[in-house]
């Protein structure tokens, strides 16, 4: 049953309150939504990063479902182990139910150091849902660039300077990488479009084999935005076509949130301190606009109408 309004979402809560994430943190919203949709019969595997340090500060825990954190780069492997354990234990009658096994990992834990373990799990097709909450940098260690940091963004290790625009590379196409493993379901999502996200989580959980979701997750200190604006900024990401919302079912790309009238990327860039150094550099803005135009074409987003 697809979720049509927010009222359709389960009332049960399995995450927080009382966690130590920042106000306006996208990852906290994702954790709450994922556990709501997945329900009690779920095991969470979390990579080292902001979510882990902010939700499991001993003796407190924000988690109402079983949770494990092992290390930074191995959450996909850990998830495969849990799935294998339950497969064997159900078969042998040791336990009766096979739970959802869901990974929550940052972009560093996914696109960089965790890529190998992720590729292994996707290739084997282990029945797990891997969710990357992508705040576009290593936030836990103080905003260092990752392979998912967008072009031009300031981070502490991609500082703009006389010789540098900020981040020099464009984001890795994580969905493309995931899909190339032949998985049956992959999707993008973001916190400004909760129903779209909720329906995708449910679909992913009900798809056999490995599934992958890539969530754009605003980070207020890292993106240098006001704590009240994280939803607004993540909506701008979609409306500028920098973060198109789509799913890939059996290799077929399907746009899930249509944007008939696009906004120019400058609206998104202006809203964040991490792009402050380039909003007055038309040639840099043009590069980012060209990147968005390509995505808009691919996902059928409409023309720019300011």
């Amino acid at each position: 049953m697809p979720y049509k309004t927010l009222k359709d979402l389960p009332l049960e809560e399995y995450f927080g309150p009382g966690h130590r994430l920042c106000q306006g943190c996208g990852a906290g919203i994702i954790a709450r939504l994922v556990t709501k949709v997945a329900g009690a019969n779920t095991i969470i595997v979390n990579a080292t990063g902001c979510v882990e340090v902010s939700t499991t500060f001993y003796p407190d825990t924000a988690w109402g479902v079983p949770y494990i954190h092992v290390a930074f780069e191995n959450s996909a492997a850990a998830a495969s182990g849990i799935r294998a354990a339950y497969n064997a234990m159900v078969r042998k009658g040791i336990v009766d139910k096979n739970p959802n096994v869901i990974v929550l990992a940052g972009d560093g834990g996914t696109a960089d150091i965790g890529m190998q373990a992720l590729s292994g799990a996707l290739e084997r097709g282990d029945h797990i849902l891997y969710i990357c909450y992508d705040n576009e940098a290593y936030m836990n260690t103080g905003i260092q660039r990752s392979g998912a940091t967008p072009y031009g963004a300031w981070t502490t290790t991609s500082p703009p300077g006389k010789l540098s625009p900020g981040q020099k590379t464009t984001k890795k196409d994580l969905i493309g990488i995931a899909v190339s493993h032949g998985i049956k379901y992959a999707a993008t999502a973001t916190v400004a479009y909760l129903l779209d996200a909720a329906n995708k989580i449910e679909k992913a959980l009900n798809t056999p084999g490995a599934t992958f979701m890539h969530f754009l997750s605003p980070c207020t200190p890292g993106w240098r935005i006001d704590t009240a604006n994280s939803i607004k900024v993540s909506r701008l990401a979609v409306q500028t076509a920098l973060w198109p919302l789509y799913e890939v079912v059996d290799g077929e790309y399907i746009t899930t949130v249509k944007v008939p009238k696009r906004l120019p990327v400058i609206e998104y860039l202006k809203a964040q301190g991490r792009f402050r150094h380039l909003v007055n550099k038309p040639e840099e803005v043009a590069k980012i606009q060209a990147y968005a135009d390509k995505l808009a074409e691919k996902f059928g987003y409409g023309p720019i109408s300011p």
Partner: protein
Amino acid sequence: MKTILLSGNTALSYAVKQLDVDVISAYPITPQTTMVEKLSEYVANGELNAEFIPVESEHSALSSVLAASAAGARVFTSTSSQGLLLMHEIMFITAGLRLPVVMGIADRAVSAPINIWNDHSDIMAQRDTGWISFFAESAQESYDRTIQAYRIAEDENVHLPVNLNFDGFILTHTYEPVTPIEDELVLKYAPKKRRKLVLDPNNPMTFGGLGSPEYYFEAKYQAIKALENSLKTIIGADKEYAKISGRGYGLYNAYMTEDSDTILVSLGSIGGSIREIVRRMRRNGSKVGSLSLKLFRPFPAKELAEVLSKTKSIVVLDKASSPGAIGGPLFLEIQATLKSFDLNVPVIDIIAGLGGREIGPDDIRLMFNRGLKVASEKKVDRLLDYVGVYL
């Protein structure tokens, strides 16, 4: 049960099959490969009802069995050399999370230069990861200790990972007659029971949380104490095993140590060769003895001190080095043991066999002669020496 021909690798696999392990995850590396092959075969033909995860690395092998163990499954992994080094980070976490993971280690030299032959450099680099660490001398012993390992690791008073070291090629690939115990006896001795603290949606719990300075030390202290205290369980498990199988190994094999002038201390498969040289040298009137250690962690210092107190000099044979230190890793333990128990026995270290360099009868004789010289002169000229290296 009937005696069958097994190598070290297939002996371990055979035990793992009898132990009804639920999840196996491993990555191939010489000389462990034939063990992984055998296990995947058992799973493929239904002889072992388990999940085999063909992971993309050793890091993922240990990570996945760690998490499977946290979910309550009985697990096994194995590796060697570079693979073990790749697991290093996760070894600490396995012990820190107090998970009864069991791992076979086909001990092998580490790069560079790359080398696939036996020494103990791989396991010695894992010394402080908090695992129980056994060394075997034969395929039979490898088999028997594997069964003991599960009983020990899963004991409520222990809850720690165990590694079983058996020398690459020398044990992994040599076929020997091995007498297994009956399947039912294995599971009676090491019964499977679901632990209370597991990842279970009926009883949600958080594993691997952040331990701030207010709590980290206590968690670490408990794991340290558990390792120290596991000695009692280890001794008990071996005694119980001896009752059902007729075979027990103890913490060490002491041969002709009682009236000796010198004792050669060693780890692993070389013990058998050393005992043979002891027999030969004794025939010529040399009062030499052998002490082959079976357990490296927890280090049974008190028990060893008792044996070592009865001799006049000690030679330690290290098949690993600790570059820049005053001796190899085993030597440092033995020297600390002597000092801690107020034993004034002179001790020297010999590093030999690195990268599979043969340790022959003459090398062992040379080691004993060094010890005898120290015993008669009552002084140590050279604390550390290398035998078998061309200079």
